[in-house]
């Protein structure tokens, strides 16, 4: 039973801390834009998603209501395809946006954030962490 409890605690802690690591920070005028994946390190063929945080650089105040003022496009590692990601606000987490996806190709993805924050035009591109094939953690 102790092993089962230890496993459950590990799962819950992993769920709670996921998304807090390996985000890339870029500056757009007076704003900080942080971008990463919901689940890191990322693997293919599992539910993941965009994790986007926008805040004022000066006072770290979160910026809300940007769902329709920013376009986010994800580009496959081999540049063969791209897809626009519709943003939705994360409940109870101001300045925080997400969009779910399942990545099917290992490698590094490009994510372009384009649009406006306030009157500031934004066009920044991020490179994701290496997405590992699901086989690297699949068992048996």
């Amino acid at each position: 039973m102790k092993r089962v409890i230890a496993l459950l605690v590990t799962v819950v802690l992993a769920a709670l801390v996921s998304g807090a690591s390996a985000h890339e920070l870029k500056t757009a005028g007076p704003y900080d834009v942080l971008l990463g994946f919901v689940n890191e390190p990322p693997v293919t063929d599992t539910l993941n998603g965009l994790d986007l945080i926008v805040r004022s650089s000066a006072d770290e105040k979160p910026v809300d209501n940007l769902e329709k003022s920013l376009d986010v496009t994800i580009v496959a590692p081999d540049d063969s395809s791209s897809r626009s990601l519709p943003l939705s606000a994360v409940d109870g987490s101001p300045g925080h946006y997400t969009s779910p996806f399942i990545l099917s190709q290992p490698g590094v993805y490009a994510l372009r954030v384009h649009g406006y924050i306030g009157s500031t035009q934004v066009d920044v591109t991020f490179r994701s962490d290496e997405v590992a094939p699901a086989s690297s953690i699949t068992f048996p």
Partner: protein
Amino acid sequence: MRASSVRWIVAFMLLSLSVPAWAHAHLTASTPADGAVVRSPPASLQLDFTEAVQKRFSLFVVLPLSVPVEAGESAHDRSLRVHALAAQLADTVMADKGAVKGRVDTGLARPGGAAKQVTIELARDLSPGTYVLVWRALSVDTHVTHGIVVFTVASGG
């Protein structure tokens, strides 16, 4: 470890994992719709939520939005810019708790109580231009959600 303790631990873990799934009052539709261009000034704005909202403890403010003209801008880029300016205005409204000048709404059609559908009355004959509804809703399960709706009254309507 006693079985009852284990049950409590498991229950707490399941509760922790289920937090994001709790019901919130999300806006599913509005009339006029977000981004709509209407020919004649609407008399009211209607909002449909996924959960009932406590109208007395919610905030609905409609304001004109100044959108400088950008030559050669695509319709899509204009939409992105308009929503960004609306978000900026919403920030001011929230900071002032709705006590802003220039409101063009005249209050709720049926204030008080809780409902999934909310109707906001507008001033008569809105001038041509872009308007933004800033809303913050307290749902009956005490969660707060917020958002904006942008619409434009076309000139010559």
